[in-house]
């Protein structure tokens, strides 16, 4: 998960419907793993 944090990949979130329209803005949440654990 260190590399996910490094590049800014939010992990296995599966639902970005609230963010698809927010163009050119930082995504506000950190990564979650496939087991649902936060980083």
């Amino acid at each position, binding site marked *: 998960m260190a590399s996910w944090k*490094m*590049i800014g*990949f939010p992990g*296995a979130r*599966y639902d*970005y419907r609230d*963010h*698809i329209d927010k163009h050119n803005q930082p*995504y506000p949440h950190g990564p979650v793993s*496939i087991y649902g654990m936060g980083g």
Partner: protein
Amino acid sequence: MARLLPKKDAVIIGLGWTGSILAQQLTDAGLNVVAIERGPWRDTATDFNIAYMQDELRYAVRKDLFLQPNVEAMTMRNDMSQTALPMRDYGSFLPGNGVGGAGVHWNGHTWRFWDSDFSIRTHLTQRYGAAKIKNLQLQDWGVTWNEIEPSFDQFEYLCGISGKAGNLKGQIQPGGNPFESARSREYPNPPMRMPYASTLFAQTMKEQGYHPFPLPSANLSQAYVNPLGVRMGQCSYCGFCERFACGNYSKASAQTTVLPVLMKKPNFEVRTECEVLKVNLTPDGKHAKSVTYLDANGVEYEQPGDIVLICAYALMNVRMMLLSRIGTQYDPKTGAGTVGRNYCYQTSAGARLFFEGKHFNPFIGAGSLGQTIDDFNGDAFDHSKLDFVGGAGISCTVTNGRPIGNRPTLPGTPRWGAQWKQATVDGYQNSMGFGSQGSSYPVRENYLDLDPTYTDRHGRPLLRMTFDFPDNDVAMSNYLSDQMEKMVKPFNAKYAAVSRLKKGWNSVPYQSTHNTGGAVMGNDPKTSAVNKYLQSWDVPNVFVIGASAFAHNAGMNPTGTVGALAFWAAEAITTKYIKSPGALVQA
């Protein structure tokens, strides 16, 4: 000795997109149908669970859902002077495996080939003269646009395609694709919401005078109930589409559109993990009586049927015909024979741009999420002063930000170490791309046959592919790269690179799972393996359905046309063939 089973009205080889559609339509017409599928049973709730479907290593890298070469491999070469060798792993293209076929792991780009594709030889000859295409084996498909359009409509409504019509009954519609052929009605769902990169692409293309439109998508923009009553969900832009199955019921596949209805029918049965070895013909070779298959325990069965539908992946359809001696092998030296003729692929190039201070958020993606221009596709532009025919759609899609595979870096970046790490940090949020997906036109020397040396685990010859990018297509693709060189300038990117296709097809790096032709449809039994209804000219109770029937490949993804051909063939079988079995077209 094979165990002889009770006869069915129809035996379907392969339960992917086409097999499912054919099974649905034929069982509706009252036929007893069995589908025999080599791979496993797969369904959304049990096999595509959203709790583990985002496993990039398992699905994208280790290719969990794909056909493995120990089940079926192929041999490959670029030209007839070479000795073809078997691949050790699937690379350039990735056939599917199991129920749903390649429709499980596709991205969902759902195009309609154009009027000018189905009548390509007539069209190009009228516009440019026969000399223009003398080095190409382009031929009309035998079916006309007006005949096939309702079948496209059926497939799009089955899937709930999200898009914007560009040509409604001849009236050009703002916001859609002005180059598409006339459609009878609007898409069943509105376009998807667009991410930043695709929006920036569309704006920049519009400013340059091009005609961007939302890519028609089988990732659904909203919840939908299809004509069979099957409910589908809204796409959540999760970024795990191609190489993955959808755990969200929002990507159209056999599982999410047809199987929930089909599997409940008393006159349908599927046998999974059963591999058909061949179609058995009567001694005169003019009638299919049964198929022979092995189950998971290696027990051999003979399944008789009145109709045999070959509905596997395009390449496997061709191999099944050759192994069963349905039709005659194409000979590139003489041009005689039809099975294996007109194998085509896809001819692509791409542009990648790097910026500073951007937030593209590539992980907010979907397989078919993007914008396209067709200004340089097919015959949308004048080729009279150009040394090629054909073209490409140019699309900016945002499919994923998966961290193993998607780490764009500037050219010259070290391949490992601290500098590479920093470059991937910079590139991840600051990079976008777009690509040309170009047509692939048939030439005499690109073809499929059975390998003379290498065999599969059952001792059957492997399929041998002989393919290289024809000069025409290389010229086309390089012209598209020239256009993309101009297109990238107004983006004012820090760095932009456009790739150029070269001759020498390499089967190792992934390129496209759009293999077409080999059992092409047409009006002339000398140049086509199946007639306009996808019925074998030689064995009329065999239909061969899939991209194997494409007489050429256009600058578009094939599945929309594959789905249309499935409905088209199903209609011919249910309204014509079962009333009067025999050849639907006299040779």
